[in-house]
């Protein structure tokens, strides 16, 4: 017989390193032709920090994505970043880069203000132009402004920025600000359990992250999906210890050889094991975050497994207390009643 069940899990996560100073910094140069170069220690491990930094700079400077070059993670030439850890880069690198861009804008706006005869704090960057906010017809092209800053106003549009997360440790009453902001993730899982074999089929996974503003929504969706699938293996199959049967060394059924001997029988989910997936995000804007962003990093792996375990319990009343929830363990649970 097959029985279905649903389960939910949610979690809260801190971001940036919470108990030690962990700055990030960036240099931004706008060249005389209006292109921009960013240097930062922030290292893209494949999570997409360079993409996100470029997007934020493009938005802040109002210039095309393709006009921005980012150099990262070179200890000889790029300014300090603590590391690609604690899901911190979008937030700290974003704030460092935006701070550097503020200095760049000060220089460029001085040039444009002179040229247009307006106050510098009434100018905006958008669509490759620096324009007067009350009359879009009054503008200077970004590249023209860059050129004139260099050779007319004699000020280079360069800037540097840094950001140190707060790290206010908690006191004896548990009060403090160890993390600048918190973000959230939840999963709903629907499973079908075969009561005669203990096999679990995950029918649906619905996963959401609250990452603040999603700077790159497609990357966030990919991240949430990846975390959900990782959780699938973690919840149901992956283990290197011979305890997948649910019996311990004290039992005569324990076999120390009951374990995968290589990755080929480790049991990572295949394309055929994929559930129906819905992976997305909600945006609860973080006022302190760069463009309101928080993070969408490590958190995504957290709630899939407990949601699946809860769904198994909902389906057949078996409470699994150590992962993975293998068919053997579930069958033992069912037989025990």
């Amino acid at each position: 017989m097959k029985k279905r069940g649903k389960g939910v899990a949610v979690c809260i996560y801190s971001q940036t390193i919470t108990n030690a100073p962990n700055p990030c910094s960036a240099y931004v140069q706008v060249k005389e032709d209006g292109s921009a170069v960013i240097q930062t220690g922030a290292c893209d491990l494949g999570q997409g920090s360079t993409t996100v930094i470029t997007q934020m700079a493009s938005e802040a400077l109002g210039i095309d994505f393709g006009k921005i070059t980012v150099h990262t993670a070179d200890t000889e030439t790029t300014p300090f970043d603590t590391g690609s850890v604690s899901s911190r880069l979008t937030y700290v690198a974003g704030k460092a880069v935006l701070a550097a861009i503020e200095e760049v804008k000060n220089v460029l706006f001085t040039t444009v203000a002179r040229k247009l005869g307006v106050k510098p704090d009434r100018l905006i960057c958008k669509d490759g132009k620096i324009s007067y906010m009350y009359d879009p017809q009054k503008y200077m092209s970004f590249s023209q402004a860059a050129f004139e800053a260099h050779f007319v106003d004699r000020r280079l549009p360069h800037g540097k920025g840094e950001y140190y997360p707060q790290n206010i440790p908690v006191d004896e009453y548990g009060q403090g600000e160890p993390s600048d902001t918190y973000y959230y993730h939840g999963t709903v899982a629907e499973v079908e359990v075969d009561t005669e074999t203990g096999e679990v089929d995950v029918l649906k996974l619905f996963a959401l992250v609250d990452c603040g503003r999603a700077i790159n929504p497609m990357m966030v969706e990919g991240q949430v999906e990846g975390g959900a699938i990782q959780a699938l293996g973690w919840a149901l199959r992956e283990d290197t210890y011979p305890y997948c049967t649910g019996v311990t060394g004290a039992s005569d059924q324990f076999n120390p050889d009951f374990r995968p001997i290589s990755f080929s029988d480790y049991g990572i989910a295949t394309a055929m094991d994929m559930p129906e997936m819905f992976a997305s995000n909600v945006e609860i804007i973080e006022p302190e975050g760069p463009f309101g962003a928080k993070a969408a990093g490590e958190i995504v792996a957290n709630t899939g497994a407990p949601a699946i375990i809860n769904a198994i319990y909902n389906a057949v009343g078996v409470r699994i207390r150590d992962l993975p929830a293998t068919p053997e363990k579930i069958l033992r649970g069912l037989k025990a009643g």
Partner: protein
Amino acid sequence: MGSFEYFRPANLSEAMDLLATYGKNAVVMAGGTDVMVTLNAAELSANCIIGISEIKELKFIKEENGVLRIGPLVTTAEIINNKLIKEKFKCLWKAATMTAGPQVRNLGTIGGNLGTASPAGDFIPPLMVLDASLITVSKSEESVIKIADFFSGPKTTILRADSLIREIRIPFLPKIGASSFEKIGKRKAMSISVASVAAVVTASTDKMKFANVKIALGSLAPTVVRAEKVEERLRGRPIDPKEIREAAETVREEIRPMTDGRATAWYRSEVSCSLVRKALWDALSELEAGRQ
């Protein structure tokens, strides 16, 4: 892996000569989906590998006088794509679809599955219940071996060191007969069987009684075995859930499951009844639909 000599005979006759010379020290390889893994894991050592995948004479699927004749080099993918096998030998077709994944299915062969002779081999239970025979050949002689006699132990066959499987012959099922295959694995693809069952069911003309039942079990004993007690229990009985359930329970007495890296003996014993029932019901629904 060590070093070895490698030969690639262009035809059967060359292969026979090579086997006559190198026989005992040679490993015959077709798609390599088992041989390469065991060589790399140092579970197999070879002084000499004979790669037979180019021998065109060994790749065919044809029907002749009520018998299906399959060459050993037919790949799993080719079995899946064959309409005749899908319609008339469902258990073999189903086993092919549940084996490994597309890449392995494109290379792995039915002859290789027999030669490796793992009790978890997905083609073996279907061939058992279909009463297949193997034609084996060496330089000097040709033999016909019934599949039930072919396996002598886990990963061991009676195939002689100088011989090759040349052909697999499967008689067509009687008119009111159908077959099925089920397996349990760790995941839905790329998963070696934890337990598997193939069943052939033939019924009385009014489809109300079992005329004959054949059940073969994989990964539940050192070799693939027939569940003779279950078969005996069902022969001539009404086709009915209670009969099937009671008969399936007796399968536990016929298996000798072991605990290995994939499952415990306890688990295999527990799920064997469920698997036998599933295979029987699936075969019955094929029967009802007029498929085989």
